[in-house]
Every structure is written in C-alpha cells, then in structure tokens.
C-alpha cells in the first residue's frame, strides 16, 4: 500500500513539476498589459487608443514630435521648403524597409498620407490645401501647396489617433473605410500575424532590419533603439488580476494602474510604479448646442460657473499626486497652456451661478446627463455634474448606460424627450487636444462636427488662422484668442487632467519618456 502511494506521488510530481514556472525565459521577452484589448489592427481605420499604440510598434512616421512638441524628421532624412513657401521636398532616409523586405518608397508614402488624410481632421485640412503630391524618385517626393500652410510638418508628426503611419502602397490603397488586417509596416517591431488573437494577445518581434536614427530618443522623435526581442501584449481585463500578475512576476508592465490598486505595489520587490510624467488624459464636458437649454449661451455659462474641477478629480482619482487642475482648452501639455477665463479651476460661487441661471432665461427644461457606467475612469464623473447643476436649480435627469450605448445615444440630435441628450463627459488623451485644429472640442462647424454640434464661425476662423500662420509668436496669440473664445462660448469644459501611473519590472528596461507608451529605449 505504502509502495503504491509512493508511486502515485512520484507520478503526480512527474506530471506537475515540469509545469512549474522556470526562470529560463529569455531576458528580452516581455509581457505587457495595455489599457484595453486590441481587436482592430488598422490604426487609420479606427481612432481607438489601443490600436494607435499598436501602430507605433509596427509603423513609422515621416516626422515625430520632440520633447518641446516640435516636429522632427523621423523617416525623412532631409527636407526643404521653397522660397515661395509652396513646395516641400522630402528625402527619405536610406535603408528604410518594410517588414516584408521591400524598400519604403515615395509611392508608399504618398498612398499612406492620402489614406490617412481621408480619416483625419488635420489630414483633411492638409489635403485641402495641397495642390499635389509627387514621387520624384524612389526616395524623394514633393508636396505642393495651393497657399502657404503652417501645419504641414505638424500634421505629418501628429501623435494622436489616427497617426499618419506609413505602410506599403498595396495596403495603403485600401479604402479608408475598410479595415486592413495584414500588418506590414517599417516600424521597430514586426507583428506576428499568426499569434494574434483579437482581444487576447498580440505578439511583436524586434525588426532586425530597422535602422534607428542617430539622435537620442526624445518623446516620439529620435532613435527608436529596441532592447526587447519579443513583446507580447496580453489582455487582462481585471485590474486586480493584472496587479497580482505583476507582483507574481507573470507580466512585466501595466500601462495604467487603477488609483485604488496602486498601494498594493508599494514596496513589492522588483516592481516599480511611477507616474507617466508626459502622458496624461483630460476629462472633458460637452453640452448639446442644438437643444434647450444649452442652445442658450447664457445657460451654458451659468452651468459652467457651477462646476469645480477638484470635485471631479477627487471623486474620480482621489490622490492629488495623480491629477492636475488645468483650465487650458489645449491641455496643460500644450506650449500655449493657460488657465485664463477658466472658472471651473476655482471654487464656484454657487449664489452667483444661480443668479446667472436666473438671468439666462432658463425655464426649467430637463437636462439629460449621459452617465457611462462601464468605463472605470468615467463612472464618477456624471454624478458630479448632475449634483453641481442641481445645486443651482437645474432640472437634471442623469441616465446610466454602457459606453457603447452612450456613443450611439450622443449622435441623436433630437430633443431630450425624444431620446436626445444635454451633456456627456469623456476622457481624452491630451495629445489629441494640444493642436487647436485637431482638438475635436474646438470644432465650430455645427451639425457636421463633433457631438455637441458647437457652431461658431469665429472659432473656425481662428482655427484657420492658426493653421496658416507660420510665425510662432503670432500662433501663440491666436492660441490665446482660441482659449478666450472657447470659454466665452463654452465650446467645452475641461474638467482636469489625470496623471496615470504605470508599473513595471526591471526586465522592461529604461523606456523613452514619451506622451504615449513607446517600447523603445531612452538611450
């Protein structure tokens, strides 16, 4: 009997022991957890942030922003602007290759820019001012403008979704309204197509033929020196599970650690949690200008006067180290940041707000606040808005729904009693807000623009001036005017910036300090 037991134990041990985790994994193979599951691969087809991050691994850009937010050549070796400021000539770096081994050519670049421009606001403006793009030879191309335009390089270096990534012409020729599923880029990582499981995992291998620039990495610009051989992006939907997995050494990097879980990583051996100094998100509030009561600017101003950023940030984040009060409509990551005209950064004078509402002509119309209940970062935002507006006497109806429903609901232009809405809140990456031409909240085109349908010809004129102005000092003046106009008309209300924390093990190495998670070295 005893002998049998020993045999059984030995058999069990033989089965189980080989399975125990070994430390034999390669030093440069890492597993990372991003903020959302990757399902759509085409970074032009979708604006999803997780697809944008995937795009930065696989694709490269012609230009990229440096630490000061200035465009620097990335795939481009050199460029020149003609004396009449109408023709840019770009020369690609030598040795650029796609992951299928084919060289990157001017034809690929033109096809990629054309496809991107069809999906991007900044790109559409660029193409509208472009007379033509011409491939001079395999590595030289020109961009001829109809009139001088100040945002050519900024557009080509646009860091937010959709990013003007360069792909082979055969892929870039696909309609922008059809998703590309074959991932062939010329970026520092090669996508392992066969390993991809939508919503589960994606694998990337260091692209051996990638030639980084000589300059040190700075934000998105400079040399993309990869020290990781195999990068596996795994999805862990539950934040607590991700933290436990990091503590247990099963993963090496978490892009966003939930505020309430951060304490669990303090003092854990081989795990470092630190703020993403440059990478922030901003909470934003949009009102519906098509329907009462917010078609009335006086009501909008009264409502804004009742809001207080600290209430939102305390309710949603809690720890003051993890948020930043910021009234800049171009975000506090912008070189034009200012709190001028932003009432919500100060404690509100509710009596004054009530008086403003009384004088506005508000007749007690219902204010429908859309409340997203399944996006962790947004759960506590709508109730703060609802309470603030109730406190000055507004008739608030806060309606809870999942984010997918909210996205569909906010397209409805109908009155609130017919399925419409009055207010929604978002959390947007500040890289999408820093440029007034690309910032969706400053869209003044009315019904054809961003949800909320803010119609303001003055704002549109200011955005056009910003786009065409080439003098930095004059641009700064226009940015100031945009800030003032935005608050005068209440285009949107910035509700504060979130400083997110990432956590990682030493295996991940020293990554470049950028406005987005980029997996190349800071060296």
């Amino acid at each position, binding site marked *: 009997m005893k002998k049998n037991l020993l045999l059984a134990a030995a058999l069990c041990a033989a*089965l189980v022991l080989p399975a125990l985790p070994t430390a034999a994994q390669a030093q440069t193979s890492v597993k990372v957890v991003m903020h959302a599951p990757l399902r759509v691969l085409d970074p032009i087809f979708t604006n999803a942030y997780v697809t944008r991050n995937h795009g930065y691994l696989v694709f490269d850009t012609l230009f990229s922003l440096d630490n000061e937010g200035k465009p620097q050549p990335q795939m481009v070796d050199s460029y020149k602007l003609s004396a009449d400021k109408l023709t840019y000539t770009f020369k690609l770096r030598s040795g650029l290759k796609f992951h299928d081994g084919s060289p990157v050519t001017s034809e690929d670049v033109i096809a990629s820019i054309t496809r991107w421009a069809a999906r991007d606001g900044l790109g559409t403006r660029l193409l509208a001012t472009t007379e033509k793009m011409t491939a001079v030879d395999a590595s030289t191309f020109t961009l001829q403008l109809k009139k001088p335009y100040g945002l050519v390089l900024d557009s080509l270096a646009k860091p937010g979704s959709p990013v003007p990534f360069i792909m082979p012409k055969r892929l870039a020729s696909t309609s922008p309204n059809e998703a590309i599923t074959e991932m062939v880029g010329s970026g520092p990582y090669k996508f392992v197509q066969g390993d991809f499981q939508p919503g589960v995992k994606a694998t990337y291998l260091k692209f051996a033929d990638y030639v980084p620039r000589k300059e040190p990495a700075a934000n998105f610009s400079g040399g993309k020196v990869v020290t990781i051989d195999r990068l596996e992006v795994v999805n862990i939907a539950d934040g607590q*599970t991700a933290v*436990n997995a990091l503590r247990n050494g099963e993963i090496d990097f978490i892009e966003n650690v939930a505020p309430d879980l951060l304490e669990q990583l303090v003092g854990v051996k081989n795990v470092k949690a630190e703020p993403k100094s440059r990478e922030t998100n901003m909470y934003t509030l949009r009102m519906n200008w098509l329907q009462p009561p917010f078609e009335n600017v006086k009501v909008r101003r009264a409502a804004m006067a009742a809001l207080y950023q600290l209430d939102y940030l305390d309710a949603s984040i809690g720890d003051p180290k993890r948020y930043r009060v910021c009234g800049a409509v171009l975000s506090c990551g912008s070189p034009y940041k200012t709190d001028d005209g932003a009432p919500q950064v100060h404690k509100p004078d509710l009596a004054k707000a009530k008086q403003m509402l009384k004088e506005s002509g508000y007749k007690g119309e219902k204010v429908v606040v859309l409340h997203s209940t399944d996006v962790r970062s947004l759960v506590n935002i709508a109730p703060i808005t609802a309470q603030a507006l109730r406190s000055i006497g507004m008739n608030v109806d806060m309606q809870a729904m999942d984010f*997918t429903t909210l*996205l569909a609901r906010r*397209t409805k232009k109908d009155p609130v009693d017919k399925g419409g809405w009055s207010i929604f809140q978002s959390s*947007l990456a500040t890289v999408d807000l820093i440029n007034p031409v690309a910032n*969706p909240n400053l869209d003044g085109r009315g019904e054809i623009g961003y949800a909320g349908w803010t119609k303001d010809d003055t704002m549109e004129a200011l955005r056009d001036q910003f786009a065409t102005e080439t003098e930095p000092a004059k641009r700064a003046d226009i940015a100031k005017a945009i800030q003032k106009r935005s608050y005068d008309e209440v285009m949107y209300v910035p509700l504060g910036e979130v400083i997110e924390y990432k956590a990682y093990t030493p295996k991940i190495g020293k990554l470049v300090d950028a406005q987005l998670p980029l997996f190349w070295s800071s060296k």
Partner: protein
Amino acid sequence: MLSLVLKRLVAAIPVVLIVATVVFLLLRMAPGDPARVIAGDMASEETIAQIRTNLGLDRPLPVQYGIAMGSLVKGDLGTSIVSKQPVASLIAARIGPTAALALTSLLLTVLIAIPLGVLSAWWHRRTFDRLTMALTVLAFSVPAFVVGYVLILLFSVTLNWFPVQGYAPLTDGVGRFLYQLVLPSLTLATVFVALITRITRASMLDVLGEDFVRTARAKGAPERYVLFRHALRNAAAPIVTVVGVAITTLISGVVVTETIFNIPGVGSLIVDAVLARDYPVVQGTILFFSFIYVFVNLAIDLIYVLLDPRIRY
C-alpha cells in the same frame, strides 16, 4: 436508443432557429452601434455612415435577417465585424480554455461532492454531516469572485504556489495544463460542490429509508456495498439531473472565473462582443451554446435510460 437520438436532433432544429431569431432581434433592438465602436470616440458622422454601409448595417432589418439566416443554414456563423475574423475560428480558438475549465471543475465537483453527500447521508445528523452542511451554506453564500480573489491572494500572491492568471493548452504539457487550472477550477467548482453535495445527501437519505436497503443490510451485505452498490445507484437519477443542469450553468458561469483568472475562453469572447455590439460573434456564440445545451440534455436523457431501464421515451 438511436431513434431517440434522431428524434431529439430533429427537434433541436426549430430550437436553434428560434434562438437565432430571438438573438438577432434582441441585438438589433439593443441601443449601440458597432460602426461607432469600431471607428472610435472622435470619428466623424460621415466616416461612421460609410462604415455602416460597408458592414451592411444600413440595410433593412428583414434583409439583414435573411442574410444571417442564409449563412446559418449553410453552416456559416459569419465574420466578426470588429476583428474581421470568422466567428467559427474565434469560437474554436476560445472553446478549449472554456471546455477545459468547465470539465475540470465538473470533475472536481463530482469527485468531492458525491462522496461528501453520501457520507453526510450515512452519518446523518452527526458532526461530519453538520459540518458539511455548514460548509455548503458558506460555499453557496460566497460569490465566485470573492472565492477567486481569496485563493489568488493565498496560493498565488502569498505562497506563490500557483499562477495568478492565464491558461496553458494541453500542447504545453499535461502538468502545465493542470497547474494553470487548479485555482480557476476550485473557484468555479465551489458553488457546484455545495449544490451537488446537498442533492446527493437528500437523495441518499430518501433511498436509505427504502425497504430494499433494509433488506440488503438484513442479508448481511457490507455497509460500503449497501451504500455505493444499492443506495447510490438508486439515488443517481436526481443527481445526474442536477449534474446536467450544473454543466449548462458551469458554461455560463465561467464568465466571472475567466475574467478573474484571465482565461481567454468563450465567456470573455461573448462579453467583449456584447460590449462592442459585434453582432455575428454574439449570435454565433449563443447559437454554439444552444447546441451544447441540446447535446447535454440529450446526454442526460440517455444516461437516465442506462441508469433506470424502466424509463422509456
């Protein structure tokens, strides 16, 4: 027996069609737009409209229904409108982890619950019985996510005996496969152990009071023989019914366990698909589950016949 199987399979066809129709209508009635989810938060209305056209979502509902049913009849579950991958291959890639988790949990449940139930009935109202019943109440009362997190905290984070998350397919080795499944299976099995222990106990108590058991004992049959040969066999029908129900409940219950332990199974596939309004994936997965339910129910009916020859259909 064969005619029973055939009859049940034929009867399953309208069930599947009704399920497909109901799911189709429910999804279209639910608010939300997959084109908007795919395009992202800041996409223009024009872009979204073009994507809707490309996906065929702007067609009249009866046309969409006809296309969906036509594909189904041909055995085609469609293509994900989010990832552009065939629904069948998405399910195929995810069914392994879900099946493994469900089966190991079921095995664990049966191995623990039936002996516990039999012994509780045998030692009725004694300390073992009272303790078992108290534990089953506890197991019923604690939600699966609490059980999961407690097990992770204890056995993974503190003792470092088991991994926190993930799944290893059988191709990685039997040892690794089982090692990854220990904590998820325990988590999922907890409530079912409680349920089947109580059912087994109650069923055994009924049977142990029967005349044939008394006769067996009077004839001097050993107690072990009485319990497992006579009593358990006669108590088996209700236990099999509950185990059958447990299989179907296990499959739907894996969603929480898959989330806690980050197991890439069908549960998380369907949750993701619902949130993204990925109609073909939701439809395909629910249809797949309905096939499983039909199959499990048929299997239970066949087992009844084997256990009790008096049963006829």
